[in-house]
């Protein structure tokens, strides 16, 4: 028998199929789009197909993210903090501080040595410390998300970003481009600004090694570099699985 975890996020929907021995059999990551229910249904079907399983082979489905509202077929749901914590402990048992940066939310979670959540803090009121900041900026810089992260590492100078708000930062980036500031320096400035916001959320809890960064923004090496610098600690990313998959893994673990 197997179980499934589904995480419907504002930008991406993730499904993990796991066997009873906690082995991941398959996973699928799809754009959430406009019809959440349809996307969650389709993503689950794709993951089942990849695992060579049928719906009746799944003993239990646990949802997180938007939860059962967007995945009504789920048997149960689990909070995003619990899902992220369990998933993080699975992918990196040495993680004691988990920082998750999604499209519209960021949170920091403190784990004990058994992977239990001890404390957490979150921000969902402002896009300044969330992945959508990056989405807005790369449009103006006309680079791919990968190039955007790489560029930050090439910067020879750290220039400050005056704007905190994403909407104002857009105008600031346009001005910087007009003043011929190299894209590498602009990219570094944007990454520093996001890292500053995210670090402020993380500092509300006790930050202990190892620090694990998860969520979509953990794919951005410019951000990993900036947050590590900001916190003065090495920032790790999951090496076995995509960082945005972690809460879905946690949801699947909750189904066992």
């Amino acid at each position, binding site marked *: 028998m197997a179980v499934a975890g589904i995480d419907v996020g504002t930008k991406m929907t993730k499904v993990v199929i796991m066997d009873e021995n906690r082995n991941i059999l398959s996973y699928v990551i799809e754009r959430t789009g406009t019809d959440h229910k349809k996307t969650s249904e389709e993503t689950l079907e794709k993951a089942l197909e990849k695992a060579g399983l049928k719906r009746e082979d799944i003993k239990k489905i646990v949802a997180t993210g938007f939860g059962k509202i967007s995945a009504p077929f789920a048997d149960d749901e689990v909070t995003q903090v619990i899902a992220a914590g369990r998933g993080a402990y699975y992918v990196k048992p040495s993680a004691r501080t988990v920082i998750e940066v999604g499209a519209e939310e960021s949170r920091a979670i403190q784990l004990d040595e058994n992977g239990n959540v001890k404390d957490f803090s979150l921000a969902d*009121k402002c896009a300044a410390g969330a992945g959508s900041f990056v989405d807005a900026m790369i449009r103006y810089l006309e680079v791919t998300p990968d190039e955007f992260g790489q560029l930050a590492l090439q910067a020879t100078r750290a220039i400050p970003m005056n704007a905190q*708000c994403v*909407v104002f930062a857009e105008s600031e980036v346009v001005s910087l481009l007009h003043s011929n500031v190299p894209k590498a320096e602009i990219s570094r400035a944007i990454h520093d600004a996001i890292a500053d916001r995210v670090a402020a959320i993380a500092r509300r809890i006790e930050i202990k090694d190892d620090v694990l960064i998860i969520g979509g923004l953990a794919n951005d090496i410019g951000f990993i570099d900036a947050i590590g610098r900001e916190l003065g600690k090495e920032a790790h990313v999951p090496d076995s699985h995509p960082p945005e998959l972690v809460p879905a893994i946690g949801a699947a673990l909750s189904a066992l």
Partner: protein
Amino acid sequence: MVTVQESEYWRWPETIWVDESKNWQDAEVISCGIDLGSVSTQAVIMADGELYAYANIRTGTSSTASAEKSVNAVLEKIGDMTRENIHYIVGTGYGRVSIPFANKTITEIACHGRGAVYVYGNTVRTILDMGGQDLKAIKVDSRGKVINFLMNDKCAAGTGRGIEVVCDMLSIPITDVGELSLKVDEEPEPVSTTCVVFAKSEILGLIRRGWSKEMILAAFFNAVSSRVVELLERVGVEPDFAITGGISKNVGVVRRIERKLNLKALEPKVDPQLAGAIGAALFARALYIKSKK
């Protein structure tokens, strides 16, 4: 389904005006105030402390060029006045340090206080300036001297730039959104977030659920006005109350603020977007007279 497109709906009309009934050459002091804001730039020419001409243009990517452009536009409209005929220039606003030809710079808080008394009369005590990138609640005495102020400049919620973003999303010209938002039978719940970026996602959801544009605007302006009222209440609202800056032209926002405060805003005598530049021009006149003594 409504298709969402990035367009130019945020663009508000630029205006250049001169009082044809007056002859500036009769005046003893010609003063100029330039309010270089993040979104708009105003250049005001005053003849002996009376509004004579102005230009209200969009700020471009270069602050200095925008300041030049605004002064050149107003001088061109007047026709026979040159830069040399202006006795004193005061720069204000977010970009005031980028006006190399200004004789002096003064903060926009002081200029809006002084200007509001000119625009609204000396009974005004509380001024809400709603600009392109910041919100300011200012308390003044009868001469327009600032007693206290509070500002929010960290977040686009409730600022002109935030409203521009929503206009583009809904494809409605910025000059129409205020009126439209009042055409609802019942005021909807405000959008749940003050963040403009998140409000965009929320508005997309409302469009998909089939909400009318009027209802969406009402929900957005409801949220904007609540945020502004919070700021005002922190400084304390004392009548008479007036609104300056570009958003004072948005009746959808103004009416909602009035409803929440249970207080009518004063009617302006001239374009309230000019308040900062008028204040600067009034300071310029006073500074010139003082320098001659």
